[in-house]
Each structure stands twice: as structure tokens, then as C-alpha cells.
């Protein structure tokens, strides 16, 4: 079965500092991994995905994620956090039937 884990419920960073939101995965076969963001009272927005290729994936809003096969991780990163990045972030994995399974979510708070 495919699954992802987000070990942190909450991440707090200061504006301008780098941020990391952690995700580990457990899959059989090649992993299809995603990051989504959910702002308050707004829909789910796609940030980036890893299917194959370069381990460093660049996405929307300056976010990137690093795929690490040996550590089975897919951490979301951003070099300089903005207050507007404060939101709920979900790591997700897709199986061969295109079903998406989400992590529990990490609430990111960026303080001015």
C-alpha cells in the first residue's frame, strides 16, 4: 500500500528564513509524489510533483522539493519564507490507479 507521513503537525519559521516541511513515503514500485497547499477557506492548490528525473523539483510560489530515494523522503523547501506562505501543506502519493493518498498535513506559520 502507498502511504506518506508528515512527522510535524506544526512548523514555525521567521519571515526571510528558509523553511522545510518534512515528508516520508512508503510505496511499492516507483513513487509518484505531490505537494499541495490549502489556504484558509480556499481550495486545494497543487505545488509540485515528482514522477521521475531530477531529484530536485521546482514548483509554484518559489517552493521546491527534494526526492531522496535512500531516505524515502520528499521534503518541501523554500529558501526564504513569506508571511503569505502560512497555510496547511499536504504531502501525497499516487498509486497506479491514480488514487491519491494524503499525509496528515503540516500547518506552516511564518511570523513577521
Amino acid at each position, binding site marked *: 500500500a502507498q502511504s506518506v507521513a508528515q512527522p510535524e503537525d506544526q512548523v514555525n519559521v521567521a519571515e526571510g528564513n528558509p523553511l522545510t516541511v518534512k515528508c516520508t513515503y512508503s510505496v511499492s514500485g516507483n513513487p509518484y509524489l505531490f505537494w499541495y497547499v490549502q489556504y484558509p477557506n480556499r481550495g486545494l492548490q*497543487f505545488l509540485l510533483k515528482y514522477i521521475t528525473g531530477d531529484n530536485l523539483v521546482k514548483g509554484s510560489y518559489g517552493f521546491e522539493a527534494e526526492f531522496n530515494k535512500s531516505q524515502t523522503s520528499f521534503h518541501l523547501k523554500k529558501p526564504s519564507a513569506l508571511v503569505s506562505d502560512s497555510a496547511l501543506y499536504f504531502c501525497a502519493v499516487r498509486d497506479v490507479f491514480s488514487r*491519491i493518498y494524503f499525509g496528515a498535513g503540516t500547518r506552516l506559520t511564518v511570523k513577521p
Partner: protein
Amino acid sequence: SAVISQKPSRDICQRGTSLTIQCQVDSQVTMMFWYRQQPGQSLTLIATANQGSEATYESGFVIDKFPISRPNLTFSTLTVSNMSPEDSSIYLCSLTGTGSTNEQFFGPGTRLTVL
């Protein structure tokens, strides 16, 4: 990219009643899915809506409670039957993009409150 619309966007319902949520896509898609997001929780897959056959339900979800229709490649409905306050959630439909994008698109969601 696909454009997904859902109706209603929100509703407040009484215990014991049923609500049908519609999902309309602006292009034909093969795979459509329904998810639930309970308050303060992550998204959970309810079922895969199969065109021309019965939906495939995930563990913990049954057809009697969440009947799904998929009459064509652009439309699906999810019914939440005999509702209780525990069914208060955001319900989202989703689809897989075609071609090389492999992106998963999500509808805006239907916010359901059961009193």
C-alpha cells in the same frame, strides 16, 4: 488543465436527510474520484467513480452511505445518505489530467454542515 465545478458550494442539512453533490468537468476524463476532508483533518479518498460501472470504495466507505453515479465522462454525483453530524465535512471531487502532466486536479469542494 481541467476546470472542475461543484454544486452546491455549501449546505446546511438536517440529521437523517440526504444531499447529492454534483461534479462537472469541462473535458472528458477517465478517472474521477471523491474525497472527504473532515474538520481539521487531512483528505481521505472515499471512492473511485467509474464510468459505466459501480464505484470502487475505499475501506471504511460503503455504497449505501455514499452512492455515486458517473453517467458520462464529464459528470459525477456523490450522495451523502442519512446524514449525521459526523458527516460534516468538505467533499471534493478530483480527476487525473491527461497527457504527460500527470497532474491531479481538485474541485473547489462542497462544505457540508449537518445539524
